């Protein structure tokens, strides 16, 4: 008979999510344990010990994301009063509200990493921190609103879905909530586009014109190719995919959906290379991307000026909430 002791199950190595350190563990040793932890897929919470460059890396990434959500509502906001039907107006209002909500959730994540919200607004308005390229452009027609809600949000969600497994757990959790809300925006945008392409010739031309103008910025949105091994954010698992992986994923899903509507994509080189199993496309204009994200885009200054004005106009609310002694006097 088998020795019963030999049957006792051996428990798997217990996996600790928490990084625990005795106070006397030297910094280099902590750093090494931390790197092993995130490399193995471990998560980091706000209260865990983390190296300074991890903290600043996550903070920079989340702050840029928060800025983009906040600035991203401005192009759409301009169409709230011009939406063609009441239902579209309700949907667009809800989308704008959602994006501002995302900014608030993300600023909250960044605040817990140590940077106060007011400091983040200061840096954004002073041009010291950036927001996504696509929000530096004007919206010329209702067709733009369809293309933005459908394709800009789709390109964003491809990146955001990959962030649901970020090593920084508070960010990963927030991304799960945000992705759920973004999926509604994409449906709203696709519905706007499908409605327009089945409408009058003028409406159809309106969507094609919007797509022609937005395709360049959309292809630039994920950024230039960069080698995986050089990317610190990837090594820390703050993000999971390279810019080229995201762009390929976006093209794979959305090119067929654009083409099935009879729209044409303004890139003669765009095709799927079956042998290499990847999309080929005309080189995006990286100079334009650099120009735009450093606040030299067509609408950069106008958007920032509006944000500055808005911040001044709402100052009394913050003062009232925070009990500014000068107001009480």
């Amino acid at each position, binding site marked *: 008979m088998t020795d019963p002791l030999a049957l006792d199950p051996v428990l798997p190595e217990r996996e600790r999510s*928490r990084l625990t*350190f005795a106070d006397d563990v030297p910094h280099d040793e902590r750093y090494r344990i931390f790197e092993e932890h995130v490399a193995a897929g471990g998560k980091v919470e706000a209260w865990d010990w983390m190296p300074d460059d991890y903290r600043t890396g996550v903070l920079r990434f989340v702050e840029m994301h928060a800025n983009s959500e906040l600035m991203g509502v401005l192009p759409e906001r301009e169409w709230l009063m011009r939406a063609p039907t009441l239902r579209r107006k309700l949907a667009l209002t809800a989308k704008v509200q959602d994006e501002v909500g995302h900014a608030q959730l993300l600023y909250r994540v960044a605040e817990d990493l140590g940077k106060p919200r007011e400091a983040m607004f200061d840096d954004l308005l002073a041009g010291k921190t950036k927001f996504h390229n696509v929000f530096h452009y004007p919206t010329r027609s209702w067709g733009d609103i369809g293309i933005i809600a459908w394709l800009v949000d789709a390109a964003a969600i491809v990146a955001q879905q990959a962030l649901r497994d970020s090593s920084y757990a508070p960010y990963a959790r927030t991304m799960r909530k945000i992705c759920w809300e973004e999926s509604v925006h994409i449906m709203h945008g696709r519905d706007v586009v499908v409605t327009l392409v089945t409408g009058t010739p003028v409406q159809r031309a309106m969507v094609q014109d919007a797509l022609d103008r937005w395709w360049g910025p959309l292809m630039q949105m994920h950024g230039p190719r960069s080698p995986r091994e050089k990317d610190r954010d990837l090594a820390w698992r703050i993000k999971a995919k390279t810019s080229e992986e995201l762009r390929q994923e976006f093209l794979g899903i959305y090119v067929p959906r654009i083409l099935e509507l009879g729209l044409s994509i303004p890139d003669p080189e765009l095709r799927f290379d079956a042998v290499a199993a990847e999309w080929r496309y005309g080189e995006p204009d990286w100079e334009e991307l650099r120009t735009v994200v450093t606040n030299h885009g067509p609408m950069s200054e106008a958007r920032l000026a509006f944000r500055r004005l808005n911040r001044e106009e709402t100052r009394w609310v913050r003062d009232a*909430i*925070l009990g500014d002694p000068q107001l009480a006097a």
Partner: protein
Amino acid sequence: MTATRPKSEGTSEPESPGVLEPYEVFRQEKDGDPMRHGGSVLAPDPTLAVHYARELYGRRQESVRLWVVRRSDIHDLDDPDLLQPPLDRSFKKPGGYVMRDKLEAARKQAGTMKPKAKER
């Protein structure tokens, strides 16, 4: 020991007015569900914290109840010596009882067969 989390001293009275503090938000998705952590908001007092929580975690009718708790009021225990002692606790879990081979031996000894799925 983990890095210390900022905690205010003792009292659960709100801090002096004008000081923003983090509040953790827990949400119940539908009746009977557990309360799950949703995220946090920053507010100067519990009333505004509840308003913010409603705005960020209940705007889409995705919650039937919210709990809003000042972060510094949470008593946190994460000491692995207490929660994850390095001892074999398999006897406390159903998976800790593996008897397939022993059962086989018992059936052999009794001259019986393994019951059909329905009768087990």
